[in-house]
C-alpha cells in the first residue's frame, strides 16, 4: 500500500501584525487552499486544526473553530498541538485518516495571532512545570537557548557573528518577492551588527519575530487526486517523533539535559534523527533534495540545520553558506521562501506554511523565488518539549 497522499491545494493568509482574530487568518488560508485545489468546503470530510494556546478556548479547539467558521456540516474533526511541530502533527493526522480509508479530502489549518515580545508561559505558580522553572529559576527565554547554540558553534567551529549575519542577508533577499512574507526588504550585515544584543551572541536581527498568520493545505488520497486529474505534489514522509533518552543536548524548555552516565545516547542525536527518520520513510537521502525549508528561529540555527539534515559535514556549514550553496542557483537553496527571517513565527501555522512553500516550489509557481527544477523538498523544525517535525514533499 502506498503511504503517500496528495497535496491538492495550499493557501495562506499573509504574515504580519494585523491585530485581528486568528480565526480570520485561518479561514482565508482555508478558502484559498480549497480554491487552489478546485474543491469546495462541502467536499471536505475531515478537518484538522493546529491549536494556538494564546487565543482563549477557540484556540484550544482550532479544528472545531475553523469548521464552525466555514460552516458546521457534521464533519469529523481533530485539534492537535505540538508546539512548533503542530503543523506536522496536524498533517500527520490528516494523512493517517486518508491512508486508513476513513477520509478522502482533508483540510488542515493553522493560524495564530501572536503577542508582542518574548513568548511567555501560562500564568500561575507551577514549580513542577519546566516552562515555569526555566523562566523563574534561570530567566531562560527562547533566544537564550538560541544563544547557547550559537556560542557553541563559535567555540567548536570558529563561527563568527558575520557568518550568522550572512544567513539573514540571504534569507531577506529570498523573501523579497514573497507576497506572504511580513518583511520584504534587504538587510545588510551592518544593520544586523548595529541592532541591539538580545541574547549574546545574537542580535535583534538574528532572531525571528512573532507574527500573525495562517496557512492551510488540502490533502487527498492519491486515487482521489488522480480521478480528478490533479497533477500535484505528494507527501512522501512525515516524522513527528520524540528524542531518545538520554538526550545530551539542552533543548527548550529544559534547564538540564538528561544524564548519559549510565545509558549511551543515540549516536545520531535528536535533530539529525528528525530528518533521517523522514529520509528513511521516503526512501531518499539529503543528496536527493532540491530545496529545504528549515526553522531559522535564529540565524545561527539555520547553520546547525545544514549539518543536522545532512547537507554538509559537521563544522562545514559556514563554508557551505559562503559558497552560495544555499541560495538560488546553488546546490540546494535553503529557505527560498525567506524563512522565519522574513515571516516571523506564527506557531501553529508555520510548519504548514513550510509545506505550502514546498508545494508551490515543486509546482514551479513560486514567483520571484523559484528554485529551478525543484522536485523534492524537505521541511523541518523542532518544537519545545521534545517535538520533531519533518515532512518530505515530492513532485
Amino acid at each position, binding site marked *: 500500500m502506498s503511504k503517500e497522499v496528495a497535496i491538492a491545494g495550499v493557501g495562506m493568509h499573509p504574515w504580519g501584525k494585523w491585530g485581528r482574530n486568528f480565526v480570520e487568518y485561518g479561514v482565508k488560508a482555508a478558502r484559498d487552499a480549497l480554491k487552489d485545489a478546485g474543491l469546495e468546503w462541502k467536499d471536505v470530510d475531515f478537518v484538522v486544526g493546529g491549536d494556538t494556546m494564546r487565543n482563549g478556548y477557540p484556540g484550544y479547539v482550532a479544528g472545531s473553530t475553523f469548521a464552525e467558521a466555514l460552516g458546521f456540516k457534521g464533519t469529523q474533526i481533530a485539534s492537535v498541538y505540538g508546539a512548533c511541530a503542530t503543523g506536522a502533527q496536524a498533517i500527520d493526522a490528516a494523512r493517517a485518516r486518508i491512508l486508513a480509508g476513513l477520509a478522502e479530502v482533508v483540510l488542515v489549518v493553522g493560524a495564530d495571532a501572536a503577542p508582542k515580545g518574548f513568548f511567555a508561559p501560562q500564568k500561575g505558580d507551577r514549580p513542577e512545570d519546566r516552562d515555569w522553572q526555566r523562566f523563574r529559576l*534561570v530567566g531562560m527565554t527562547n*533566544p537564550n537557548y538560541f544563544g*547557547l*547554540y550559537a556560542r*557553541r558553534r563559535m567555540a567548536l567551529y570558529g563561527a563568527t557573528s558575520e557568518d550568522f549575519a550572512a544567513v539573514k542577508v540571504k534569507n531577506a533577499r529570498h523573501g523579497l518577492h514573497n507576497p506572504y512574507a511580513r518583511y520584504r526588504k534587504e538587510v545588510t550585515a551592518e544593520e544586523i551588527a548595529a541592532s541591539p544584543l538580545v541574547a*549574546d551572541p545574537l542580535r535583534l536581527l538574528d532572531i525571528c519575530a512573532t507574527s500573525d498568520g495562517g496557512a492551510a493545505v488540502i490533502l487527498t488520497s492519491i486515487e482521489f487526486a488522480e480521478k480528478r486529474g490533479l497533477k500535484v505534489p505528494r507527501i512522501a514522509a512525515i516524522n513527528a517523533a520524540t528524542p531518545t533518552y538520554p538526550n545530551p543536548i539542552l533543548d527548550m524548555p529544559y534547564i538540564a539535559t*538528561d544524564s548519559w*552516565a549510565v545509558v549511551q545516547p543515540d549516536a545520531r542525536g535528536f535533530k539529525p534523527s528528525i530528518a533521517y527518520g523522514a529520509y528513511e520513510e521516503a526512501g531518499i537521502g539529503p543528496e536527493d533534495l532540491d530545496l529545504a525549508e528549515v526553522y531559522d528561529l535564529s540565524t545561527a540555527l539555520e547553520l546547525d540545520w545544514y549539518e543536522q539534515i545532512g547537507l554538509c559535514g559537521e563544522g562545514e556549514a559556514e563554508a557551505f553558506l559562503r559558497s552560495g550553496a544555499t541560495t538560488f542557483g546553488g546546490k540546494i537553496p535553503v529557505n527560498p521562501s525567506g524563512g522565519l527571517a522574513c515571516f516571523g513565527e506564527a506557531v501553529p501555522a508555520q510548519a504548514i506554511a513550510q509545506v505550502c512553500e514546498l508545494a508551490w516550489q515543486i509546482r514551479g509557481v513560486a514567483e520571484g523565488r523559484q528554485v529551478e527544477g525543484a522536485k523534492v523538498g524537505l521541511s523541518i523544525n523542532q518544537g519545545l518539549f521534545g517535538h520533531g517535525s519533518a515532512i518530505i514533499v515530492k513532485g
Partner: protein
Amino acid sequence: MFYFTAVSKKVIPAIEGFFTMDPEAPRLLGTQCKACQTYFFPPERGYCRNPECDSEELETVELSHEGTLWSYSHNGYKPPPPYVSPTEEFEPFAVAAVELEREKMVVMGMVPKPYTHEDLKVGQRMQLVLDPLYETDEERVMVWKWRPVEGGGSK
C-alpha cells in the same frame, strides 16, 4: 560570592528540593534511580525516565558542584514572568550551561554579578554558588548560580 551578613530577612530557596542552602558549599539536589543508576535534575520523583527501566525508586543525591562551561548566553532584555527582576530597572545578566563530569549532564544556571557574558569562555571551569534571585521586604529568595572558578575567571 554572596555572604549572609547581618540581615533580618528570611532566607528561602526559590524552589523546594532543588538545592541545599549551605551558603559556603551549596549543592544541587538531583535524584538517582536505584535500579539503573541514572541521574536526574531537576530531581525526578515519580518514575525513572530511562525507557528501559520502570523503576519508581529514586534517591536524592547531591550533584557535582564544579563543571565545564558547555556554552553560555545573556539576557539583554527583561524576560517575561514568572521571571522576577531583582532590581527595579532591569540589568542584563548572563546564563551558563555547565557540564558535570561524573553525572554526565549539562545544568543551566544564572551567572552572578559582577560576572557578565564577556567574562565567559566555553570550556572553562565553573563552580556552584548560592545567590539571591530577588528580594521582597520580608524575604531573600535564593537560587543556585554558576560562576567561574576562582583564578579561572577574569574577575
